């Protein structure tokens, strides 16, 4: 297999003639075309099974999560008004943090994936949902649903590989800038919603002249508008409503936003960057079959083991493998799919990466630190 690698798109295409790839190309899973087809068929069967039996219980689930989330948000904000009393502040900040986490993960992320579009409820629909996050929904749907989910872990195409800031893979070129990446990672984690928002502007593409300044400006304007409203709500209006007790409200809201940022950063990085998760080159995906696409999703994702509450708070992205295989199936069904997917992967010799949060997170931290250095 050709291994000259660069993260530049054009060069890849000129170096490697497509025709030779077709013949010598081997899927990163090591499976041949027939095996991949058989694997893909089993995955399609699982998908069709869930589609044919999703129904009222699933609809009740998302309605319940939404109701709990909204109640928590109201209760959290009310408690913060009494935040001069420490127990109220702690309870308020905890409830608001949880509400924001639920809203971004189990609700927003999944609704925008179209997981609940089958209910045909215009109020819980991917085309209309706007989440409690500075990143405008339509921009997020582009960078996440289209780019990341189609090009999962393909270096140079999936811009989620290191978010354009961190060096994750030894095949990404090293420069001295990378030395600071443990610090960048900490900053990115703390301000994650802003990182996500700026992500789709693709500053580096604008600098390379592949994207117009006008397009980027329009996106920045949308972010400023949405972000401005979010800041106004959390840091001006709600604190102001508390009058002289504005400070505990402001700090409580800041805490909730930061807690949500740290949490989402951790879950998302644990889903794609722990040890054992593979990243791919553009040659790997040339002429990829549906079965090949499925297999790449498994190789490029990692699950986190935990309790039921943990799964819900992670937006069921703790079942990252199942989410990547079936991004538009309702998240509450990933848990029952996981052992079945795992068994099929084991039968086909496809590694299935599932460990505890501490092990996955530890290995992500080590990787970020290790790739700060050359090699």
């Amino acid at each position, binding site marked *: 297999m050709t291994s000259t690698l660069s993260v530049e798109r054009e060069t890849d295409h000129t170096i490697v003639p497509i025709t030779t790839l077709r013949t010598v190309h081997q899927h990163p899973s090591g499976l041949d075309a027939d095996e991949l087809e058989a694997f893909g068929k089993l995955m399609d069967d699982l998908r*069709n099974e869930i*589609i044919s039996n*999703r*129904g*009222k*219980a*699933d*609809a*009740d689930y998302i309605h319940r999560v939404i*109701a709990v989330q*909204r*109640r928590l948000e*109201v209760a959290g904000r009310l408690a913060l008004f009494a935040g001069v009393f420490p127990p109220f502040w702690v309870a308020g900040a905890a409830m608001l943090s949880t509400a924001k986490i639920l809203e971004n993960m189990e609700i927003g992320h999944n609704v925008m*994936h*179209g997981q609940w*579009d*089958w*209910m*045909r*409820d*215009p*109020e819980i*629909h*991917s*085309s209309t949902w*706007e*989440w*409690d996050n500075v990143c405008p929904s339509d921009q997020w*749907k*582009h960078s996440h*649903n*289209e*780019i990341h*989910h*189609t090009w999962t872990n393909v270096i140079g195409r999936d811009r989620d590989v290191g978010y354009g800031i961190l060096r994750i893979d030894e095949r990404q070129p090293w420069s001295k800038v990378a030395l600071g990446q443990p610090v960048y990672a900490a900053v990115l984690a703390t301000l994650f919603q802003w990182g996500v928002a700026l992500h789709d502007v693709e500053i580096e593409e604008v600098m390379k002249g592949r994207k117009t300044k006008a397009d980027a400006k329009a996106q920045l304007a949308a972010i400023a508008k*949405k972000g401005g*409203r*979010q800041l*106004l*709500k959390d840091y001006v*209006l*709600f604190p102001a409503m508390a009058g002289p007790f504005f400070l505990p409200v402001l700090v409580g809201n800041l805490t909730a936003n930061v807690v949500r940022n740290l949490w989402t950063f951790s879950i998302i990085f644990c889903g794609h960057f722990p040890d054992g998760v593979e990243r791919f080159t553009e040659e790997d995906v040339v002429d990829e079959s*549906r079965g090949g*696409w499925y297999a790449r999703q498994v190789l490029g994702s990692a699950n986190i083991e935990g309790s039921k509450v943990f799964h819900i708070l992670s937006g069921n992205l703790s079942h990252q493998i199942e989410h990547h295989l079936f*991004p*538009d199936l309702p998240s509450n069904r990933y848990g029952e799919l996981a052992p079945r997917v795992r068994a099929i992967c084991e039968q086909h010799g496809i590694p299935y990466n599932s460990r505890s949060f501490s092990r996955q997170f530890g290995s992500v931290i080590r990787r970020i630190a290790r790739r700060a250095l050359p090699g």
Partner: protein
Amino acid sequence: MFTTVLERTARFGATLSSPLPVDAFARLVDPLWSSTVCRARVTRIMRETPDSASIVLRPGRGWESHQAGQWIAVGVDIDGVRHRRPYSLTSVPVRADGCITITVQAVPDGVVSNFLVHQLQVGEIVHLDPPNGDFTLGSHSSSPLLFITGGSGVTPVMGMLRTLDAADVALDAVHLHYAASPDQAIFADELRRLAVRHSGFGFKFGATGTGPIPPELALTTRRLDALCPDWSARETWICGPAPLLAAAEAIWESAGISDQLHSERFQPSLTATNGTKAGIVQFLDSGVETPGDGIRPLLELAEEAGLSPKHGCRMGICHTCVVRLNSGSVLDLRDGRIQSDEGDFVQICVSAPCGDVSLEL
């Protein structure tokens, strides 16, 4: 002055609740509080016949009153999925209790009608679209009237008659009503009582049985002459099965008085599906038409017609390509599912048109 205070409060509330609308939180307290959509609570269900029921609804904020004869789209969640169907309003426009009613006849294998008649429970919430339709009396309230109805087609007429009754005008109306059998005749008792109270109202009922209409009951000029000799002098409203409507339309046409006949159909004319899959795809927003062979996905057809619809993965996973269906049916190439409801969201990268289709694209 007062309105600006209200507006400001609304804007302030909207910023506090953003990015969600205030309704998202208001409905935690009462699902009927909404300024963006109209919902209603089922307050009573009355069985009319073994397979029909009247449903009393209390609409929430945002309900605008209707004209007798109009219909509303009712949205219900069945097995988690929202379904919408039109139903005629059978209540007077302004009831003292602020409620409205619809009357539903369960049709064999009908998804929504069977749910409404047999499963719906008092207390449940349904979704309403504003009243619609021009099958109304308009300026003819005090003209001599003739109503012809079959089966559940009696519903909009019942709304009109109740409204006329409540207005306390001297009725000059004849009503010919058909149903399969007397015990399946919705509202027959109430209509007979109405005829007793109003000397100017005549009610005639015909039981057709379940098979083809017996010849002696079929709607003909002779039968009309016998039942309502001055029928051609009356403004006429007809609602019922297609053969009944066809018969009436022919009669009124040959009498040269088609403009006196107002008709309403409950069943969509079957244009799109029926096995034939090739057809014309209309992209409404861009004003482009293109033929579809029923096999290739809409996204490809649109692109070939020169459009560049938003899309991403082109394999049905990202939902970037969803557009609203305006009319016709589409086939999901992955699992053979058919979508045919107006307003349905279609993933155009994996859906092919089934016959003629129009999309909001």
